[in-house]
């Protein structure tokens, strides 16, 4: 609308000059002089810094040429010649509108504002002729954009013919190696391989028995059998589901401004674990997460939409409209990074600086989510809540209603009890009204509690009530009833007061009328009860009250949350959404229809979205289509990264033009195609990858053959995969391996594991941490508290759970070492393992057992000797038990335990 106004205004201005016979450069001399003397210096001094083509054009507005000034900025024409009252410029400089104040740092003086007003009134004469060519942003070229590798359709590459290649993957990898005069490292030894594969597929170390079975199995299918066993174990889903939770930025609490518990998030987590264990086709997995609520698939699919609901939000944002757009932004950014490897976040405010994604593209997607309900209607104070699908059965709902009713009853009982008790207290006070007046006579006008207490004791009345009575008498000198009291009080004649008012009040109680009676029973009168119950009720009453309240609290705490799943559903369908200029919902541009980013459209026709649905289902199906250039590429690259520690495209979450290009584009396309042909099966992809020589090679380079180059010089980052990457275990793997190796680990799967009610505060203002991590469960099931991660996770590069992360870091910092040296979980696991070892009488056996549990190999003779000597050394200052525990802890701390060769 504003854009439209702007062009009309500009057009009108031209017309005006045109019809009165001026040429555009022909401004009358008086106007020119006014501009040069008054206006130009003002613009130069106060506006050009941010609004000139020479410097910046904030908000798209430049004021240093006539053309640009006439054109205006993002919000429309800066001024309408001759009409200062309709001019945005005047609105801005007058500082009346809180959202539009220019210059932003310091208001213009009144005379400067007057100057501008006069100038616009004059018709905004502007003699400037210099035409600085406008620094307009280069429009996005979609056709050109489509040529970028990741936006082009998947190519069909033939597997190169390589003599030694034992799998298609090896053929692609070896071709590139040969081009660089390199070759694969020799195969990893079997113990190294099974340790690598077991951690890789299940996140756990192989048991010594697993290892020995594999070593003993000399058949060619030995490794194939290991892979099948691991893929079939439920721990596989826990490990690979966890990978997915990284890109789904999973958490059990909101974090951000108000850290309240996502009491139902675990259902999404368990859904993901199940999906991997069942090898749910990835295209179906995708569709369920984006539009499961629009499929006729029941709870499972509703739960999947938790993907859209798990984002961190500023829940106490007072501006609901802004909050809704913030949520949509988070959802689009997540979908973009997770499924497309695209960064949509920046496009909220302006066209993408690197990728061919326009603001129209963004708001076309945003319109789909504007038609989606992500917020619940409920709120607590300023805090709004996310949407949830109720999964409660009618019986559960009925039982909840019953407990609600019971609770309400109990609360009513308390209220009744309390008002009765207070009424009794009031009646008691009324019965002793004369005594209160008498006692009050002994208090000074500005009496404090310390004055009232002893007097109250003498008269056997309530000190708090006495004090408020005295204050009342002081504040109401006009009351006729207390005229006598004032006289008698001055003489401190308490007995006369008692007698005099005793008679008056006895009479009053008899007649139940008259001014004395009204004063007596007035709830705000001289016997008004203090608000605090403890000030007026006796100990026994207070005790029963506390008892009743405690029962209510217990009842509330015992009431389970009704089963529900975080998620989204359709809301009122909005076929269009205006572009938000600079991302603000207060400056709206032209409306755009729901749709998908143009550069990624697989056909040339615009998508047709249903009138009565948000369009999320169509979006999900479009993303999951075989023709989509990005979805399969991005996903197979993720799986590759999670196996090898490095993606074919290194930036797993960014396939845009600013990211690095794939190291093996042919392999990537071949894998993506093969993946789709295999029915989008993740497990099939694992088999394909893990059965390759590329996966099974050693991490130590072989001896460089004569004539071959040293791989460290040619490819120090191992992009070409001339060896396996040395990989540090991830946080969960470290903790799980600690627990598993000392026999502590529980293999229980799924269920609610956060000890907080839904929406309960993780932290209120007290900073007291109520979350506990002392659990034998796998690390996957520990609460993920945003803003306050479990320290073991935090130190070992658990990703920030507010943003998708497909490629975790692997840092080495001193706090990790402190943790391995001093954290209770490490100390306890060490003690536990040492105790376990102590069952073996032979010390050499103990060391062998520890090595095979933690390193997956027997120790060398020299290592056994070193270990024995070390234990003996420890024993000089520590007990024998501690000495063995220290030995175990040393192995846990060693590089060999936390790195996979």
């Amino acid at each position, binding site marked *: 609308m504003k854009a439209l106004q702007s062009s009309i205004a500009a057009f009108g201005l031209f017309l005006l000059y045109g019809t009165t016979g001026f040429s555009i450069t022909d401004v009358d001399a008086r106007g020119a002089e006014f501009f040069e003397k008054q206006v130009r210096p003002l613009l130069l001094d106060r506006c050009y810094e941010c609004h000139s083509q020479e410097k910046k054009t904030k908000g798209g507005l430049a004021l240093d040429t006539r053309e640009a000034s006439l054109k205006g900025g993002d919000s429309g024409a800066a001024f309408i010649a001759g009409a200062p009252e309709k001019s945005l410029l005047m609105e801005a400089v007058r500082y009346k509108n809180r959202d539009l104040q220019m210059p932003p740092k310091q208001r213009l003086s009144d005379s400067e504002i007057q100057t501008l007003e006069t100038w616009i009134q004059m018709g905004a004469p502007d003699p400037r002729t210099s035409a600085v060519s406008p620094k307009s942003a280069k429009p996005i070229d979609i056709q050109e954009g489509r040529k970028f590798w990741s936006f082009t359709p998947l190519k069909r590459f033939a597997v190169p013919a390589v003599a030694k290649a034992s799998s298609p993957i090896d053929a692609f990898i070896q071709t590139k190696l040969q081009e660089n005069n390199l070759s694969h490292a020799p195969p990893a030894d079997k113990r190294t391989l099974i340790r690598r594969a077991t951690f890789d597929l299940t996140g756990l170390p192989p048991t010594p028995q697993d290892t020995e079975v594999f070593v003993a199995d000399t058949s060619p299918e030995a490794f194939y059998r290991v892979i099948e066993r691991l893929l079939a174990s439920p721990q596989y889903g826990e490990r690979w589901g966890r990978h997915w939770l990284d890109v789904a930025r999973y958490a059990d609490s909101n974090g951000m401004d108000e850290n309240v518990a996502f009491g139902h998030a675990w259902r999404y987590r368990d859904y993901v674990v199940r999906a991997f264990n069942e090898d749910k086709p990835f295209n179906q997995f995708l569709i369920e997460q984006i539009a499961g609520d629009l499929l006729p698939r029941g709870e499972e699919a509703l739960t999947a939409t938790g993907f859209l609901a798990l984002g961190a939000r500023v829940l106490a944002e007072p501006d609901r409209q802004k909050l809704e757009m913030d949520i949509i932004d988070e959802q689009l950014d997540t979908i973009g990074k997770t499924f497309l490897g695209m960064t949509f976040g920046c496009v909220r405010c302006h066209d993408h600086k690197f990728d061919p994604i326009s603001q129209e593209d963004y708001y076309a997607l945003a319109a789909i989510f504007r038609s989606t309900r992500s917020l619940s209607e409920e709120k607590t104070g300023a805090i709004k809540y996310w949407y949830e699908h109720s999964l409660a059965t009618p019986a559960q709902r009925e039982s909840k209603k019953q407990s609600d009713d019971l609770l309400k009853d109990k609360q009513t009982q308390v209220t009744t009890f309390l008002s009765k008790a207070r009424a009794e207290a009031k009646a008691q006070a009324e019965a002793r009204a004369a005594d209160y007046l008498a006692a009050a006579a002994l208090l000074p006008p500005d009496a404090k509690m310390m004055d009232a207490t002893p007097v109250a004791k003498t008269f056997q009345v309530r000190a708090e009530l006495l004090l408020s009575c005295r204050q009342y008498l002081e504040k109401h000198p006009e009351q006729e009833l207390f005229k006598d009291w004032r006289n008698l009080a001055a003489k401190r004649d308490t007995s006369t007061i008692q007698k005099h008012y005793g008679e008056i009040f006895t009479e009053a109680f008899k007649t139940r009328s008259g001014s004395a009676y009204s004063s007596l029973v007035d709830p705000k009168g001289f016997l008004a009860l203090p608000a605090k119950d403890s000030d007026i009720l006796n100990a026994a009453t207070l005790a029963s009250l506390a008892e009743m309240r405690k029962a209510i609290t217990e009842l509330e705490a015992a009431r389970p949350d009704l089963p529900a799943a975080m998620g989204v559903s359709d809301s009122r369908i909005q076929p269009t959404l205006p572009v938000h200029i600079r991302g603000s919902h207060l400056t709206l541009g032209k409306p755009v229809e729901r749709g998908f980013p143009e550069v990624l459209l697989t056909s040339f026709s615009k998508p047709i979205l249903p009138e009565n649905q948000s369009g999320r289902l169509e979006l999900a199906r479009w993303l999951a289509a075989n023709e989509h250039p990005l979805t399969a590429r991005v996903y197979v690259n993720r799986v590759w990264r999670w196996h090898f520690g490095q993606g074919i495209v290194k930036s797993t979450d960014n396939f845009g033009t600013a990211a690095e290009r794939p190291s093996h584009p042919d392999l990537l396309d071949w894998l993506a195609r093969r993946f789709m042909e295999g029915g989008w099966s993740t497990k099939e992809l694992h088999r394909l990858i893990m059965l390759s020589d590329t996966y099974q090679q050693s991490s130590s380079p072989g001896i460089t053959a004569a004539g071959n180059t040293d791989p460290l010089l040619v490819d120090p980052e191992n992009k070409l995969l001339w060896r396996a990457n040395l990989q540090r275990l991830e946080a969960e793997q470290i903790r799980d391996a600690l627990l598993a190796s000392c026999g502590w680990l529980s293999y229980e799967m799924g269920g609610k594991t956060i000890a907080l009610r839904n929406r309960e505060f993780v932290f209120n203002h007290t900073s007291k941490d109520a979350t506990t991590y002392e659990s034998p469960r796998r690390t996957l099931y520990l609460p993920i508290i945003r803003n306050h991660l479990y320290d073991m996770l935090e130190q070992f590069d658990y990703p920030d759970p507010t943003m998708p992360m497909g490629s975790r870091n692997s*840092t080495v910092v001193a706090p990790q070492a402190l943790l391995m040296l001093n954290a209770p979980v490490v100390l306890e696991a060490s003690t536990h393992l040492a105790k376990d070892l102590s069952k073996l009488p032979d010390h050499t056996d103990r060391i062998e057992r520890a090595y095979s549990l933690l390193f997956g190999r027997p120790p060398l003779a020299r290592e056994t000797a070193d270990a024995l000597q070390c234990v003996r050394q420890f024993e000089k200052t520590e007990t024998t038990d501690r000495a063995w525990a220290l030995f175990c802890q040393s192995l846990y701390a060693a590089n060999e335990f936390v790195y996979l060769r």
Partner: protein
Amino acid sequence: MEPNVFRSLSRRTLLQQTAGGFGYLALQALLAAESAPTSIQSPLIPRTVSLPARAKRIVFLFMKGGPSHVDTFDPKPLLQRDDGKPYPFEQPRVQFATTGKLLKSPWTFRQHGQSGLPISELFPNVATHADELCVLRSLHGTNTAHGGACLKLHTGSDTQVRPSMGSWLLYGLGTENQNLPGFITICPTFAHGGVNNWGSAFLPAFCQGTPIGNASIPSDKALVKHILNTQTGAVAQRQQLDFIAKLNRAHETLVGPDLALEGRINAFELAYRMQSTMPEAQDLTGESDATKRLYGMDQPITENFGRQCLMARRFLERGVRFVQVTHSDGEVQWDQHGNLFKGHSKNALEVDKPIAGFLSDLKQRGLLEDTLVIWGGEFGRTPTAQGTDGRDHNPYGFTMWLAGGGVKPGFAYGATDDYGYFAQNDKVHIHDFHATILHLLGLDHEKLTHRYAGRDFRLTDVSGHVVKDILA
């Protein structure tokens, strides 16, 4: 300085990800052997900057909850005059809660020092330092809620997780003591942004703040996580470290030389040293009684915050780049929606003496001239009343003050409107504030960037101006 200080490093991902503890130490030697460019250094080795740095380190005294500016450092005569009348201008479009009529300050202001800076009677001791303070009276942010406002103040963003200002400083400047963390936050609050207020977000992990304790425990019990070795004797632990090193060397022969493995060996040595350097830095027994009294540690009411400030001084002395000290009680902190008189009196009493002592101590030790001291909360409070004795959140105009390195002393800058609701003259946005403190440390806020998710990020997002008028 370079637009991206790690550009030279980014060629080697490993390098970015393996800081051998807080410094690179042996990595350097390895790199030299690999004929690396000579510009490669430990990421935390102090770097020289091209802008003239006016301060070397920052201490941020954070008053959690939002102290009222009109009751402390921004006197408003018209507010006193018009007590009980309605605020005569338009109130914000979106309010946190509705507030009523104007509420005059229950405290009186007096002018202090040669500069004559007006300071209310809430801060009698800080007032003796009036001639050191550079009071910014025109701060403004956007977010009316604690969480958003805390995040905005610490990270520049209230919608997304971004690195905190201390992390940016470390990223740009490194730190001077390789045996201590470069960014320490003493007794921070876990509420309202929590870890994100000292997190490094997408910056390398070694840029994150190290918390000592948290707001729920007294400062004498505050420790870095896992710093104490409770089970193992000193002799045995030394032996254990040697044994771990031996295991690691054996492992190295299996896999060949590797930077990360080497870094991890050093990390253990550093961790071992930190077990003594951290407690030593926190140990106040060597401080004289006079010094403790200076910080108010002899009085129960000021003991806790005094200890925090004294610890901060010891960290600053030891070359820590950014120290945050949070004042936050277990209740409502400075958040007086009600009980303004009682609450602000108590809060001010708890911090006034310690802060004054801290400033004196920094000065007498010659630290004040190159240390930038920052005082303030996440927002100010409304001049209008909530109830009869309370004020609501006000991000539209509030006060922070600076002292020390590179700022004009005894100086007040900017102004709110006649009643103190909106910043009006020489407005200083949070981004401007960040741009200015980076400038004081010699960093150009437009050039201190980090490439993440396809774009270059800054502490100041896409705006921010250095407030040149407050530079000494």
